[in-house]
């Protein structure tokens, strides 16, 4: 099932080139074309083009401040919320450019979910955290079932099933993050963006999140930003290495299957970064 019908009619009719079938060669979940992001006059990301494989984990790595998070947030139009930000280029999702005029970012975010660096559950009960997300998107069905299913998928069910009415803020950091993942998958997105989802957690919670990602990738496409090289190597199928240019704008230095990028990097800077010589 595609999500094409969800995006607005205006977008489907919009720029003819965005609809050409060439985008559907291969099994891509997203195609990014010449994407640049500006904050005011400062260009944070420069001309990034890449294709994200469906139902794989793609890791974005790179030195601090190279625009990884900015790039990730551009993929579901989260940057729209930052005053003064501007995006150029195209992000083609299910045959539509999500930046085409007439596309509603609310619809984009329903199809492309996001998990943040710091766990940010709503100050509501565990149950309500998931139910609210489903309800505002018009879910009509068995809510209990959906909550259970989402929590099971996020490997959190066994820990919270007896206490669904307790505040989500009473959970541990790792549990909160898995709740955020459960919340994201409750609305059945195609893609889940994760912005350093384990960096605020202890090592055990981090491993749990990584295991979870490997399970989720059976059903979802996952794009993850991480600072942790080992993590990228452990969980990702593909790795994109972003570098900072002279103008401090991030650009794509290397992109390929994780094995290749880590064992046989084509770019010298990638090798230096991965082996820890800078960054």
């Amino acid at each position, binding site marked *: 099932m595609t999500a094409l019908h969800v995006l607005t009619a205006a977008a489907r009719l919009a720029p003819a080139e965005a609809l050409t079938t060439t985008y559907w060669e291969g099994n891509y979940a997203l195609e990014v074309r010449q994407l640049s992001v500006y904050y005011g006059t400062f260009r944070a990301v420069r001309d990034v083009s890449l294709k994200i494989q469906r139902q794989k984990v793609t890791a974005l790595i790179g030195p601090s401040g190279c625009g990884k998070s900015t790039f990730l947030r551009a993929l579901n139009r*989260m940057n729209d919320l930052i005053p003064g930000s501007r995006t150029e280029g195209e992000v083609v999702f299910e045959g539509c450019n999500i930046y085409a005029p007439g596309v509603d970012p609310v619809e984009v*975010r329903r199809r492309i979910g996001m*998990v943040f660096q710091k766990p940010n559950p*709503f*100050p509501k009960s565990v149950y309500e955290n998931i139910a609210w997300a489903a309800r505002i998107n018009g879910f009509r069905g068995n809510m209990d079932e959906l909550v259970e299913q989402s929590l099971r998928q996020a490997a959190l069910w066994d820990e919270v099933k007896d206490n669904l009415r307790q505040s*989500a803020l009473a959970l541990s950091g790792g549990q909160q993050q898995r709740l955020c993942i459960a*919340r994201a998958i409750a609305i059945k997105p195609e893609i889940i963006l994760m912005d350093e989802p384990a960096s605020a957690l202890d090592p055990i919670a981090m491993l749990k999140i990584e295991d979870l990602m490997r399970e989720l990738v059976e059903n979802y496409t996952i794009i993850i930003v991480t600072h942790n090289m080992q993590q990228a190597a452990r969980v990702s199928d593909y790795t994109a290495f972003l570098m900072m240019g002279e103008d401090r704008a991030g650009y794509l230095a290397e992109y390929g299957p994780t094995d290749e990028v880590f064992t046989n990097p084509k770019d010298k800077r990638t090798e230096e970064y991965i082996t820890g010589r800078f960054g």
Partner: protein
Amino acid sequence: MSTLSSPMVCSLPEGDSFHSQVAARHKKGALWLVIFQAATLVSILALTALLYNIINQSFGWVAVRNQVEPETLAVEGTPLEDLSKEQLIAILEAHVSQGVMRRLESEAPFSVRSREDVYRLVEERVIKPEILRSWPLFDSLLRRSAIQKEVAEEFPGARLQFRAWVNRQFLSNPQSATPDKAGVRTALLGSLWVVGLTILVAFPIGIGAAIYLEDYASDNVLNRLIQTNINNLAGVPSIIYGMLGLAIFVRGLEPITSGAIFGLSDPTTANGRTILSASLTLALLILPLIIINAQEAIRAVPRSLREASYAVGATHWQTIWHHVLPSALPGILTGTIFAMSRAMGETAPLIVVGASTFIAHDPTGPFSKFTTLPVQIYQWTARPQDLFRNIAAAAIIVLLVLLLALNAAAIILRNRYGRKRREG
């Protein structure tokens, strides 16, 4: 120049000079601490002086002279307090004229009046106590014998009585020209009406403006101008709002504020000097406060919460309604409490808008004439008679208690709400 040319030397103090240098730094800190403590002490002293003044005036001895001593009214050894209703009626008949009796009978037949009511009539019409002089609390406590001597010399036949000027009668009596019968009921109800209506008007408008300015308005010249103006309006002297209220609400919108348009105007005052005018004026006055406070509360909502909401596909309005406002509500409520206290204590604009100087009947609605506690206090303190100072002090206590009660209620509400949210 010399430091540049000379080789690097370590010029940080060592040994004894280091110890003495640290001691000197501590000394400087200690000096500042003393200054801060002194500042705190001054403010505590000021508060104590205020409370001392109010309490001193609100309690104390009074010299009372009865026209007829209650002891002389005892029937066959039974004191006045224990007499039956019939005996009290008999006393009343013996002491007042038939005309007065007939008028009392026509007001309410004696057959249906309660014993307490008749007792009150006896006190009012027969005993007729009159307060000749009052003494403040601390004089009453410390100069007891001197006061007793003074009373014996100056007011023969008068008795000394301890009187708390804040009492139940003071709360339930309407305004009166005689200070010992005057009460604050009219002013209290007036205050509640005015402040209640003010909040009803200012709260939704203030929150709406705050949401717009904080969450929707783009950062352009016009909106920055509006923001600056609101910030400045918060500092405009209140009397100016009074002038504004007089011009717009009392004069300009008279048909509305007097209730004439709805056919509800008070027949005794067919003009705009009503509770509604006062409320609208105070609402204008506290609007900037509410807006600024609400904006700050909204700004304090963490961005991560908004992002969480957007990331699951919520719209702008859903994010505001379900997450931003509930998170900001405790802060918004605090701001509203401050604004409410401000409105409660405001005097000058209400005098300009036309609070009644003397009003003895309760306000019945937004179109009634009104007076409020601070206005009432102001008017009482302006009177020449000593006793009005006592009831002014008593009214201040009522006002302070009312303010504290409102604040406490709002804080409890806020804490309970905050806890409920945290617990889900």
